[in-house]
């Protein structure tokens, strides 16, 4: 078990890189949930679409230096554009409705995007090759580790710091926090809250697309990857606390590490561990580790 420091170290990095790539996606989900109060079932589908769009853009840009990175940014922009259309034409009419309508709507999006992906890219498993410069492994002293996975860890931290700074230290971020607390009051101060909702949805969805693009070289692109990721993201958001960015970061770390060390220590029960974790959190702190109890 832990008597092999190299294996332990590698599992630690595996857990971190899994957690950090999940964080990029869960961050968008929790942001949208916190501000719009909409649980976006389609967030995983946006992630999947981001991966597939990246695949096509990489093909399109083959030979262009930095093609993969342009494709990743392109995926984020494409998902932002799609989210803009969805929000303006449909979703915004549902904010005042019962949560059930929002669930049904986002579930419908899951179906539509799933079929769209099947029609456009077919059902075979696709893969995106690692970007140049990240094909090898890095010597970390006691072990070699794939450099792209290290990059994913770093990207998670960059997204976390960037979002923390945006939400807590910028004026736009103050509007986002205020919109989360009291929509009517913010509106009465002359702020177009509908626009803040739209931008939050667009930004969160762009993160899902970006996360999908970054994951594309590390995972196989396939039908069903959306369902897998949305379940994990929901668990992260529940463990961390609905709408809490810090909570999503913590939840993603816990899920990643539980997954990698679970495989090592109790390989037969690894899949159950995260659910157990969620149950324990729900029993002790139903509002999540860093969330706040809903004031009624």
């Amino acid at each position, binding site marked *: 078990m832990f008597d092999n420091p190299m294996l332990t170290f590698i599992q630690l990095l595996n857990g971190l890189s899994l957690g950090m790539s999940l964080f990029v996606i869960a961050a968008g989900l929790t942001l949208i949930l916190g501000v719009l109060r909409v649980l976006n079932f389609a967030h995983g589908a946006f992630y999947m679409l981001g991966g597939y769009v990246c695949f096509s853009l990489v093909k399109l840009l083959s030979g262009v230096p930095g093609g993969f990175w342009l494709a990743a940014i392109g995926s984020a922009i494409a998902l932002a554009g799609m989210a803009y259309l969805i929000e303006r034409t449909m979703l915004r009419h549902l904010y005042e409705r019962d949560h059930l309508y929002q669930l049904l709507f986002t579930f419908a999006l899951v179906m539509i995007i799933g079929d769209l992906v099947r029609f456009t890219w077919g059902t075979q498993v696709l893969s995106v090759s690692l970007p140049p410069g990240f094909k090898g492994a890095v010597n970390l002293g006691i072990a070699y580790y794939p450099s792209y996975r290290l990059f994913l860890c770093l990207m998670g931290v960059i997204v976390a710091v960037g979002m923390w700074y945006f939400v807590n230290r910028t*004026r736009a971020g*103050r*509007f986002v*926090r*205020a919109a*989360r*607390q*009291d929509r*009517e*009051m*913010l*509106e*009465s*101060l*002359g*702020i*177009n*809250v509908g626009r803040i909702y739209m931008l939050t949805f667009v930004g969160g969805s762009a993160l899902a697309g970006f996360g999908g693009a970054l994951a594309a070289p590390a995972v196989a692109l396939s039908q069903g990857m959306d369902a897998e990721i949305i379940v994990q993201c929901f668990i992260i958001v529940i463990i961390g606390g609905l709408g809490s960015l810090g909570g999503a970061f913590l939840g993603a770390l816990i899920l990643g590490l539980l997954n990698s060390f679970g495989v090592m220590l109790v390989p037969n029960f690894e899949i159950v561990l995260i659910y157990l974790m969620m149950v324990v959190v729900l029993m002790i702190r139903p509002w999540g580790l860093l969330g706040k109890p809903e004031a009624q």
Partner: protein
Amino acid sequence: MTLLDVSDIHTAYGISEVLFGVSIRVEDGECVGLLGRNGVGKSTTMRSINGLTPPHKGSVTWRGSEISGQPTYDIARLGIGFVPEDRRVFPELTVWENLDIARRSRGKADEWDEQKVYALFPELETFKERKGGFLSGGQQQMLTIARSLMGNPDILLLDEPSEGLAPLVVDKLRDQIASLKAQGLSIVLAEQNLNFVLELSDRVYVLEKGEVKFEGTPAQIREDPELIKRYLTV
């Protein structure tokens, strides 16, 4: 000049009708009181003016143009500040952040900024790093007023500012509102605290069951115990 003219508005929440043809008028620089018991439509009148609960009949004009039906944020940008009841500060934002998000220049000669609102409400400067949710009731009330001032409004709709505050705090608040009025700000003041309104207002409307039952000066109300008994005592 008539700043705000509310004419025969009918407002409902869903199917329950709350206002049955309310008309009020505010001249530039005037403080107008809305009196009446709980639930007679004072808050709804204010929400009808600023668009949170738009009237389904009647008109609201601001400096002569119709504003009813416009989105709340556009109405606010015209210079209509709203200070709702229950002191809705943003509890997770600090005092300074609460003020900062409301900052809006309207191209006036002498505009509000942090320093000016701190001068009017010195306590807020002491607690500027504190989260809104951790302030006392009186401080929260001052913060909601200060926050509206940051948008440089021409009129303030103040809904029950004295509610739930200690008498000493109420006295202080009255002086602060009086000083705003002296600076030329127009005010609509909805209150159940009779003396508070009568001391500050130039004219007063008394509401009952969603209708205006009386319009006059504070002196007329003071001299009419029958009116006070009928519409204002609990």
